[in-house]
């Protein structure tokens, strides 16, 4: 079905729904690379007018990627909750934006609505939203998950501690981990991107993290971000695995590019759940996503990269994850060219994930060939903290020496928590207090040279096996 909008003296035609969505998207290099972007700003606005007038219900009758061809589409359609959708079923996409911003859209109303929303509805409305809208709506969404710590509570900002090392050297990983703990990082997860994806290496690293956690009685979870099949084999061999990690995307073909399908994720989810390693909750999956992954896998079906990103959240939602984060600036300038595009995408991904009921975090990051720097990351971090992001990722000094990109520094997490009066996860906050790292106001000041925690944590004999 084609869509039209008259703007000035021109009639703009959009051949189908995915073309309309792509043309309504804010400008970004990945859609231009795919040949999907509007070729003028006026055409982009014509698409937004047409989209604003479109009934939300349209997305239930016109699939962007055919049901028969794609298991992600089938998941979206089969899981749609018509009763939850009922309160907004009469709205257009434009009317839906107004409703989301209204005082009627309370945290409770948004949580109840989430199962009634499809990724395409959420992507569509986000294209009509300014950055301020994306922040305001996300800030109203609450998604709380738990394993050994509770994440997503109001007034909290959690952090994945990412202690990557180019050769997975145990002492090097431990050094980055302990450095982060002294900044109060790691309440979301201590999560390592391994340099090699082998089962024995994965088990060795899981055992190291588990020993560290038990030695200091840290109320958090660890994760080695290996392929899901590696995690499955590790669990079969009895490894102390808390969370199963996997990168996911918004089409069956792109997921195949990652070497996964829904059946494999179901198998891994069941295996991890049966270990029952969580103490305060049982959410045991961790997913990463990022705009552009489907195009780079040549499996985008002519759908714009932001809509595909939100479709990936339908995959995540199926498995009640503890953590989901977009790796927003990692993919490079051919998908998100500069800081303007990265910041916008980070806010979109966070808001859209939250609307679908996901515990969204963001890796606030960029590569050296993108037009961005640490000043831009400061901006995005403050915006996301304002929007109530569940967690961010931090590495020593913002420099990931394994993946060669820049994320946040541990410093940035402390600074933002203090600036915005946000606390770590409650169980982890209590541990920081027990370690003597917090002052009377609950802040985490620089530890002195005689700090008990510093001496305890850095006394490393035995960890460098």
């Amino acid at each position: 079905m084609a869509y039209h909008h008259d703007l000035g003296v021109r009639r703009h035609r959009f051949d189908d729904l995915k073309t309309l969505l792509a043309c309504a998207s804010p400008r970004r290099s990945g859609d231009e690379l795919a040949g999907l972007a509007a070729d003028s700003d006026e055409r982009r606005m014509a698409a937004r007018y047409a989209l604003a007038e479109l009934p939300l219900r349209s997305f239930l009758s016109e699939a962007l990627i055919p049901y028969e061809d794609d298991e992600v589409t089938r998941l979206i359609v089969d899981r749609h909750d018509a009763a939850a959708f009922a309160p907004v079923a009469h709205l257009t996409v434009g009317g839906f934006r107004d409703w989301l911003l209204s005082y009627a859209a309370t945290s409770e109303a948004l949580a109840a609505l989430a199962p009634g929303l499809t990724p395409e509805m959420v992507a569509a409305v986000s294209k009509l939203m300014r950055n301020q809208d994306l922040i305001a709506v996300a800030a109203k969404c609450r998604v709380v998950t738990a394993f050994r710590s509770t994440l997503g509570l109001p007034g909290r900002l959690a952090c994945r501690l990412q202690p990557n090392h180019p050769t997975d050297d145990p002492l090097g990983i431990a050094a980055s981990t302990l450095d982060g703990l002294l900044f109060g990082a790691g309440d979301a997860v201590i999560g390592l991107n391994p340099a090699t994806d082998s089962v024995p290496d994965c088990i060795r690293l899981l055992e190291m993290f588990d020993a560290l956690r038990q030695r200091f009685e840290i109320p958090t979870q660890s994760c080695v971000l290996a392929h899901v099949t590696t995690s499955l084999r590790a669990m079969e061999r009895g490894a102390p695995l808390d969370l199963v990690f996997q990168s996911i995307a918004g089409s069956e073909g792109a997921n195949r590019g990652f070497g996964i399908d829904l059946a494999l994720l179901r198998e891994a989810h069941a295996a991890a759940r049966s270990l029952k390693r969580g103490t305060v909750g049982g959410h045991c999956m961790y997913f990463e996503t990022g705009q552009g992954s489907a195009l780079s896998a040549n499996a985008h079906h002519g759908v714009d990269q932001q809509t595909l990103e939100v479709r990936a959240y339908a995959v995540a939602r199926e498995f009640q994850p503890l953590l989901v984060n977009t790796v927003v600036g990692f993919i490079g300038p051919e998908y998100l060219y500069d800081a303007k595009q990265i910041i916008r995408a980070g806010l979109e991904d966070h808001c859209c994930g939250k609307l679908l009921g996901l515990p969204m975090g963001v890796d606030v990051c960029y590569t050296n060939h993108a037009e961005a720097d640490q000043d831009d990351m400061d901006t995005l971090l403050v915006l996301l903290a304002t929007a109530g992001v569940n967690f961010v990722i931090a590495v020593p000094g913002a420099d990931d020496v394994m993946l060669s990109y820049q994320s946040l520094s541990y410093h940035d997490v402390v600074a933002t928590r203090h600036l915005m009066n946000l606390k770590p996860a409650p169980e982890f906050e209590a541990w920081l207090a027990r370690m003597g790292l917090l002052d009377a106001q609950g802040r985490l000041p620089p530890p002195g040279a005689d700090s008990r925690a510093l001496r305890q944590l850095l006394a490393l004999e035995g960890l460098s096996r």
Partner: protein
Amino acid sequence: MSALKPPPADLVDPYAGLRVATRARIGLGRSGDALPTTALLDFQTAHGRARDAVHGVVDYERIAGLLQPLPSLRLRSRAPDRASYLRRPDWGRRLHAEDLPALSALHGDYDLALVVADGLSAAAVNAHAAPLIAALLERIPNWKLAPVVLAQQARVALGDEVGEALGARLVAVLVGERPGLSIADSLGIYLTWAPRLGRADSERNCISNIHADGLSYAQAADTLVWLMAEARQRRLTGVELKVDAAPALGEAARNDLCLE
């Protein structure tokens, strides 16, 4: 009094024992909640160098001089400038239409075509391309070599079109790798059997991490010669060519972490 003794090293820098185990920026200290000034400037310097490497220009005239008497030829991709190159990887993978005839005129019977591509680090190509080629040539005196192609605004896959136009049985693309903060001049080599338009990345083998603190020219050349001999014998490159047995492969090469 104990005050007369020097303090133990771990009180001067409690991280001293850990820094040897990682290049990560641990134990930077804090100015309030922020980075201390020196750490801030160190980081910005590293980022500045990385950006300079990405946006720099390769001095191909100098490289052509260093390669002599080996003949070389300069070519452009379809990306007209750096900004377009970064946005449009597809343009960087194709030859400029005007440059194809000069290349096709050199079509011949070649065992190997060498392509030098600026990729994402001009600094890497300026520093390492010519000495690496010299180290390679010492090891393959009997190979029939095509004129060396020096390609501007070029990505790895440009070698497919070049190799096909030249009629070479193998193409090795020497390319500047995406700079990190610690190393901005790392060179990579991608080897492709029977190059032609549309080859997939899974049909190539990669040697990564060639720089002063990584693989040496000799190590990289040994590995490349080993791969080329295997490729010629088995008439393929890529995932089916087991690189586990190759000598001195860099860690990044083993881990499929080659960064174009």
